[in-house]
């Protein structure tokens, strides 16, 4: 059986978990077994709808205290549940919480783990999973040698597929270990699309010359419904909030569309965005290295091109 961990926040299942369920269901199909999901805590989502993603059962530990994330407690419960349910493959989204618990679960189950997986396992010669390495510059094909296996799948790497199945929700009871952390404060930036969850991202670099010029970028982001990001020099100069810095030593993202404005495209920046599906580069300098990594490019003055692009997007949306 393939068991998929459902990650949620504020009683809502995360999109990366929907992807993980679809991915787990596809593996189950390869192995000829069932795909079931594991939920620790309570959510407002209709769990029976998870059948559409391929989960035939949802095992739920219906204890609201588990809505607070506690890596030690969660990993312990997941490992116990996986053992009790006889899961062979345990799937996580390789997202913020997944990174905190999947490896611990693997250790508890004596299972090999591949994190940052980007495609389905290859079953021709054992159980081989491909993951991105060298900050997205290469792939490693990794064989898991153990009977039980744990996989954490990269966000936005496996499309959500449709199954016409229904789901039964099964209540589970397990003794809950004592909490190892106490959540004392949560600070969420309201009204902004979180960068790690965004499908569309508009990013600015030194080419915009100063923080006072960010208006044109924000207008484009608004027209697109995109999150905003920036290069390291911009973040270091405090032109933009530090959490917007994408790159080798900042955040790594994999949106469907990444629009880079006035960013030259240093290797360290590319390491943060090279898993984007489509990259558009707008830069005055035709020799900017970023053009070599781009799908579409506009050589021109950002101060003219960006407002023109915003206008074109608004026009398209208006005509829809």
């Amino acid at each position, binding site marked *: 059986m393939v068991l998929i961990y459902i990650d949620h926040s504020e009683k809502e299942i995360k999109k990366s978990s929907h992807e993980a369920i679809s991915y787990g269901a596809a593996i189950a199909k390869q192995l000829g077994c069932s795909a079931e999901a594991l939920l620790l805590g309570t959510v407002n989502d209709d769990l029976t709808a998870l059948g559409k993603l391929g989960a035939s059962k949802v095992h739920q530990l219906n204890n609201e205290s588990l809505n607070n994330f506690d890596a030690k407690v969660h990993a312990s419960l997941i490992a116990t549940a996986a053992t009790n349910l006889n899961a062979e493959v345990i799937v996580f989204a390789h997202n913020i919480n997944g990174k905190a618990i999947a490896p611990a679960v*693997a*250790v508890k189950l004596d299972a090999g783990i591949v994190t940052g997986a980007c495609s389905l396992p290859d079953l021709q010669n054992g159980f081989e999973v491909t993951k991105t*390495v060298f900050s997205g510059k290469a792939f490693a094909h990794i064989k898991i040698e153990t009977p039980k296996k744990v996989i954490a799948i990269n966000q936005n790497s496996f499309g959500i597929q449709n199954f016409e199945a229904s789901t039964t929700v099964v209540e589970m009871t397990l003794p809950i270990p004592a909490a*190892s952390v106490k959540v*004392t404060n949560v600070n969420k930036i309201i009204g902004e699309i979180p960068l790690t969850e965004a499908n569309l991202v508009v990013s600015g670099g030194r080419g915009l010359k100063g923080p006072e010029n960010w208006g044109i970028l924000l207008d484009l982001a608004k027209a697109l419904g995109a999150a905003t990001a920036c290069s390291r020099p911009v973040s270091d100069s405090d032109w933009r909030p530090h959490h917007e810095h994408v790159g080798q030593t900042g955040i790594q993202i994999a949106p469907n*569309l990444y629009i880079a404005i006035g960013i030259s495209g240093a290797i360290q920046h590319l390491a943060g965005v090279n898993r984007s599906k489509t990259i*558009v580069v707008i830069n005055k300098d035709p020799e900017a290295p970023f053009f070599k990594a781009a799908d579409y490019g506009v050589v021109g003055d950002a101060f003219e091109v960006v407002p023109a692009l915003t206008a074109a997007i608004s026009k398209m949306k208006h005509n829809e």
Partner: protein
Amino acid sequence: MNILVCISKTPDTTAKIAFTEGNTKFDENGVQWIINPYDEWYSLVRAIEIKEKDPTTNIHLITVGGPEAEPIIRKALALGGDEAIRVNSNSNDSYVIAQQIAAIAKQGSYDLIMTGKETIDYNSACIGSMLSAILDLPYVSLANHLEVNGNTASVQREIEGGEETNEVILPMIISCQKGMAEQRIPNMRGIMAARTKPLKVVEPLATNAHTSIKEFSLPPSKTGVKLIAPDQMDELVKLLKEEAKVI
């Protein structure tokens, strides 16, 4: 307070990525090695700041690597840290590495075990979480802020769209990322002192790897950027919609 800081050797961020021996090994020819930036700039520097505030703090560095790792260990000692341990193993399996670190951790009594969020070469982000399971300790990952007060730590970790503060009773494990501290350049005094700081080498525990790398491959090269003239933004929008299908 005793802190164990995990240090990893990685290729420099501008290194050309190529493979040899039938694509089974990373080609180390001409590669410059650095301390994994997350380990150095965020994890180690924060530990050093804690020691600057409380000089009774002991910082031990640990690396799982062969003798080629010693230059970067000395670099880390030059930044700060009282002594280093190198476990003589070239394994790149996270489970094997975590077992080595755990074995050393069990011999000391560390209040805090710190790692970087992931290494820039394998991007596995496994060590901290694995240590938490092996040592049965609380773990907070992707931390961008840490304060220690006696035997409690106040750790701020990243969540989608914001951050969350956790209070944890020590001992604990954390993985560190941007925001935790700022990169430092070692000074001459530090570099000189590093030469005589203890660097102990121990043999690894025999452990079976759970995974093996069969092969590496490179992504297909990009087919070449499609350039659109600045006055053709309607055309770009059309391409993004109909060709790329991203809007």
